[in-house]
């Protein structure tokens, strides 16, 4: 009976979403308090109902109810308990349910913390969020019902995709979705402002924390996905420019631009129209990402079984939401009035620098979008089946991000409106010299990839030192830091750490693929990797070939690694589990290829210097977003 209850909960939630949309939006237009007051209870009710539906599906997984099709297809009686919970969002239907639940959580949060807003604004924001909710719930109910029965029930389920049976994957989708869906809030605010016909500083002060929190979660989600791909796919890479990775990266770039432009609009009143457009774009790109992942139009590691009906549904929804939002923008943005002339700014001012930041991030976003969609375009135009290689993204990204990195330390140091360029230059010149000096030292110390190493060290040191220079100015002044400033310092510091990691691992990474017999040793630089053989190991739902690999550094024993090759009982699928010795200075990464006979194995060994810094940097950036959101100024009425 429970699954039917879940179904009923879903349908009721859809009705609540309708209620949350129609009455408040109408009420706001007609200025009827009673109708607008419906928004909050409807949002809470929707949240409660979806929590219920989610609990029902979780219960079906925990009790292994194989009469539910989705459970039968994505779990198995041998599946360990922890993965029964995460299997709930392991495939299409469940992950959409998670999407809807996360949206309801954001709606609930907005309903709870919007009491200080004018009733009309709050009603409109919740109403717009309701529209999105209607779309996704309808999608869930009509094309991807997670509660559909499978009669007669099979005795055994098919199992969760082994790729997903991993602790990293338990939290990666929720984090990512909280970020993705979180951009619905600034989007709803933008639409509300357009309906209202004005943007004021109060309004922006109110949306900024939401954007920062959503962006923080998205950063965490992407970092977790990258970390997971690194150790689980067994290729040793941390970013592949895979369409689905790009799908999550585009809203991230737009979001990064948005948090900066919102700051300008809030503090100076400039760029109001652009900020609204970015808010629409960030969420539109989130929806596009969902479409790309869910419809299977692109070949990717993440493409689940594709169903054309689903793709069509999302595409229509996408067109309606984005088209509607842009139409509204075109009709109303003019009425917002052009920027206050008293707010004009000179070429050397913080506004100009943030404008450059926005243009570069937007260009990078457009570049990724083009590269991701180009195969679809080429196919549609009959130009053949093509794929766009990682060098395209890599080259263009470096070209666009280099000026961003060069300008970044100036941002916080230059005054609003007008400033003397010489002042900031004088402040930063010694640090620029130091950064270049460090780069030169790195150039001569690097065993390989000298130019990239030097670029990485210089770039990271420049951003780090420039950011520290700002902190020093504050310390010498009144010594007070607002949460917003600390968030900025964390974000920019995180970018420096990330830069160091990404460029150094790119330059210094050593990779070998060799056939190794037991007792053989592979020497890479100062590392000696000795293959001692492979034995069998029984896991809960798999059998593993478990390798024993001893790693020495100079004359010191460093680690005993156990890379595994797992054969899952259910589908006969094979999985690679890399053996990793992780340190801040670099990882030793060993993965088993295949057995070559005579106890010999294909072995892949990577030495990856500073690879941890990539995720550490991302973590700092996310933290920066959260800390910024906590600034007390945003909570002032």
């Amino acid at each position: 009976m429970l699954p039917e209850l879940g179904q009923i909960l879903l349908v009721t939630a859809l009705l609540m979403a309708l209620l949350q949309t129609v009455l408040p939006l109408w009420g706001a237009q007609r200025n009827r308090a009673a109708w607008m007051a419906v928004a909050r209870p409807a949002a809470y009710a929707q949240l409660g109902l979806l929590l219920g539906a989610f609990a029902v599906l979780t219960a079906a997984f925990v009790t292994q109810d194989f009469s539910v099709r989705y459970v039968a297809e994505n779990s198995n009686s041998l599946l360990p308990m922890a993965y029964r919970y995460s299997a709930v969002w392991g495939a299409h239907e469940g992950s959409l349910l998670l999407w809807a639940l996360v949206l309801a959580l954001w709606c609930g949060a907005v309903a709870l913390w919007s009491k200080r807003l004018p009733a009309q604004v709050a009603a409109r924001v919740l109403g717009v969020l309701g529209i999105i909710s209607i779309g996704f719930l309808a999608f869930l109910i009509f094309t991807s019902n997670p509660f559909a029965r499978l009669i007669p029930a099979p005795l055994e389920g098919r199992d969760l995709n082994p790729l997903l049976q991993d602790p990293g994957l338990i939290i990666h989708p929720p984090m990512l979705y909280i970020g993705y869906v979180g951009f619905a809030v600034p989007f709803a605010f933008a639409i509300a402002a357009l309906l209202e016909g004005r943007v004021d500083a109060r309004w922006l002060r109110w949306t900024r924390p939401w954007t920062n929190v959503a962006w923080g979660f998205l950063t965490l989600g992407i970092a977790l996905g990258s970390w997971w791909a690194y150790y689980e796919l067994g290729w040793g890479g941390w970013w592949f420019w895979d369409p689905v990775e790009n799908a999550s990266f585009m809203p991230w770039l737009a979001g990064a631009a948005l948090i900066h432009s919102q700051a300008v609009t809030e503090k100076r009143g400039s760029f109001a129209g652009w900020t609204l457009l970015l808010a629409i774009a960030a969420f539109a790109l989130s929806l596009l990402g969902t479409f790309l992942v869910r419809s299977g139009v692109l070949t990717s590691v993440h493409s689940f079984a594709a169903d054309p009906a689903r793709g069509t549904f999302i595409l229509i929804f996408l067109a309606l939401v984005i088209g509607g939002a842009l139409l509204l923008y075109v009709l109303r943005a003019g009425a917002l009035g052009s920027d206050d002339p008293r707010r004009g700014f000179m070429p050397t001012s913080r506004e100009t620098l943030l404008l450059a930041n926005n243009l570069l991030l937007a260009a990078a976003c457009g570049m990724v979008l083009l590269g991701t969609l180009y195969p679809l375009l080429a196919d549609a135009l009959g130009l053949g089946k093509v794929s766009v290689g990682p060098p395209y993204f890599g080259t263009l990204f470096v070209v666009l991000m280099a000026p961003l990195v060069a300008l970044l330390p100036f941002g916080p140091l230059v005054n609003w409106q007008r400033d003397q360029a010489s002042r900031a230059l004088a402040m930063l010149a010694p640090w620029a010299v130091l950064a270049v000096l460090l780069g030169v030292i790195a150039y001569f110390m690097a065993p390989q990839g000298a130019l990239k190493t030097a670029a990485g060290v210089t770039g990271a040191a420049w951003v780090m030192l420039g950011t520290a220079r700002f902190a020093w100015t504050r310390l010498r002044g009144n010594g007070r830091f607002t949460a917003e400033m600390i968030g900025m310092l964390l974000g920019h510091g995180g970018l420096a750490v990330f830069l160091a990691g990404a460029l150094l691992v790119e330059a210094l990474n050593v990779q070998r693929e060799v056939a190794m017999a037991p007792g053989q040793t592979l020497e890479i630089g100062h590392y000696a990797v000795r293959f001692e053989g492979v034995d069998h190991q029984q896991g809960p739902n798999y059998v593993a070939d478990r390798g024993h690999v001893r790693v020495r550094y100079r004359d010191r024993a460093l680690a005993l690694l156990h890379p595994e090759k797992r054969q899952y009982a259910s589908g006969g699928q094979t999985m690679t589990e890399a053996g990793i010795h992780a340190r801040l200075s670099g990882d030793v990464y060993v993965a088993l290829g295949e057995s070559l006979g005579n106890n010999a194995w294909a072995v892949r060994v990577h030495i990856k210097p500073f690879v941890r810094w990539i995720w550490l940097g991302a973590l700092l950036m996310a933290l920066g977003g959260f800390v910024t959101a906590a600034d007390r100024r945003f909570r002032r009425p």
Partner: protein
Amino acid sequence: MRPVQRRRMVWVLLILLASGLATTLVAFALQRNIAYLYTPAEVLRGDAGTQARFRLGGMVVKGSFERAAGSLDAHFVVTDGDAMLPVTTARILPDMFAEGTAVVASGRMQDGRFIADEVLAKHDENYVPKEVADKMGQAHTKHDVVVPAPGAP
């Protein structure tokens, strides 16, 4: 020109210059980094040319896989139902690689063999890359061979 006009003019020129530069860069980067997908029949027909890097898609022929003991060098044959093409690689093959399943290999032709520096296989036991299925579908309508639908469960 009034100062306001002049400033606008400068902005417009700057934006034009920037977008022109960006377009050139993007076009250049795209041109150099796109890889076309061909099936063995198309390769043998000469569609792929001789020098360029491209991607080869098709099914691994049953019984064609061989590898010298203790070495990484692997040989196998890829087919689209119409033609066969031998492939050589010195890379570790992905977990899902098996005879009778779909692969996409990137590399170039050399002496009638395809030398692959990367081999990708389907991601789970049911999934066939859509572009391969599409291309194979075209080849197979002539032969009445059942091609697995993309992502069919």
